[in-house]
């Protein structure tokens, strides 16, 4: 197929990889956006979810937030933020949009994980005289860890996808290669960009999956 070989030659042209519009620079932007926003989202969502889950309050909020997140188009939020005064401050509108869409899966999974901890175990911990804080850190958190890590993985994949879309609203990242390809009416560049994004997303997914498995294995060995 012609497009395939054209795409291949696009990908193997050294000039496309270097410079401010090159793949390496865009990949760096994408990685930076994903990592920073994942960190911010975890710092916002996890403490809230852990405390709510520990107290057993706010369940409706934690669960409904995911549904709301699904109904609101990412693209619309990106553009809306871009048109607000925040949009004039460089990357901030992109970062806020990314965080908004990474928080729901983190919050929901961590909350559900905390609530699914066996109530008998929690009661036993209380019976042993553990304080609320000890129970949270020593009992509930380790048992909820698999679900929390699943939430982190989903959020990371979501961040990669949203960061790609940010290119439509003038943000950086690998999505820029795709949008530039559309503007140039260059199908090989569009497809090459799409392949890079897809491979990146799948890499992030499998990396987090491996990390998750490793963390749980360690935890089981320690127990």
């Amino acid at each position, binding site marked *: *197929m012609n*497009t395939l070989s054209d795409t291949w030659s696009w990908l193997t042209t050294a000039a496309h990889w270097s410079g401010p519009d090159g793949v390496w620079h865009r990949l760096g932007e994408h990685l930076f956006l994903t990592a920073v926003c994942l960190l911010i989202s975890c710092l916002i969502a996890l403490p809230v979810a852990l405390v709510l889950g520990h107290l057993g309050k706010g369940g409706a909020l934690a669960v409904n937030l995911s*549904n709301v997140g*699904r*109904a*609101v*188009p*990412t*693209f*619309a*939020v990106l*553009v*809306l933020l*871009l*048109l607000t005064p925040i949009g004039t401050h460089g990357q901030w509108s992109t970062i806020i949009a990314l965080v908004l869409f990474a928080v729901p899966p983190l919050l929901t999974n961590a909350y559900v994980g905390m609530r699914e901890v066996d109530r008998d175990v929690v009661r036993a911990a209380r019976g042993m005289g553990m304080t609320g804080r000890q129970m949270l850190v020593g009992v509930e958190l380790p048992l909820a860890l698999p679900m929390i890590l699943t939430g982190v993985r989903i959020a990371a*994949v979501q961040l*990669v*996808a949203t960061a*790609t*879309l940010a*290119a*439509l*609203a003038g943000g950086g990242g690998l*999505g820029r290669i*795709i*949008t530039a*390809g*559309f503007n140039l009416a260059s*199908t090989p560049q*569009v*497809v090459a*960009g*799409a*392949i890079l*994004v*897809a491979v990146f*997303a*799948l890499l992030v*997914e499998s990396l987090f999956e491996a990390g998750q498995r490793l963390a749980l294995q360690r935890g089981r060995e320690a127990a």
Partner: protein
Amino acid sequence: MTAPPDDCLARNEWICGAYLSSRREILIDAVLQHLQLTVASVAIALLIAVPLALAARRWRWAAGPVLATTTVLYTIPSLAMFSLLLPLYGLSAALVIAGLVLYSLTLLVRNILAGLRAVPEETRQAARGMGYGPLRLLLAVELPLALPAAMAGLRIATVSAVSLVTIGAIVGHGGLGNLIYSGMNTYFKAQVLTASVLCVLIAVAAELLLLGAGRLLTPWTRRQA
């Protein structure tokens, strides 16, 4: 020379009644295109998902590859998915529908399969004991029992599709997404906000409609609730 009118359009306000009345045709067209794209893609996905889920349950070896493939498809970001389909479909509505079908497929296959697997073995044996053949067992016992899980998948798939249609704007077939995209380029606040709100309203309406349909289709679950 006449002075420019001093209305909310000229002031570029977020909420603007004049926008709604003067652009009614455009808005209706965009909503209709949005609905068409959503309904077409979810319907096609459903037609493919049911046999796939049945096959994955019937032949155990098929379940792994089917689930793995759909998971990989789901991980690919939407913009990349549409772009990957560009050589096959060009700048067409078919491209957007094909992309959305691939996403919906994942959610539907997983949920239908989970629903079918959750049918208790005793129920199946009882039906067989009453002389039900394989086809009647499937249509009269297994599919109805799998329906609540399948409907949950259908709801998630539909709501996601409504939101993902907007990305079709990159190829000019994005329903309300087209208005958001052009509104972004011209810094037209009222257009972006109106189109975004309409998008969310469509998603909420679809969710409620499918919830209602699910309740009508599974009257036996209502008594428990």
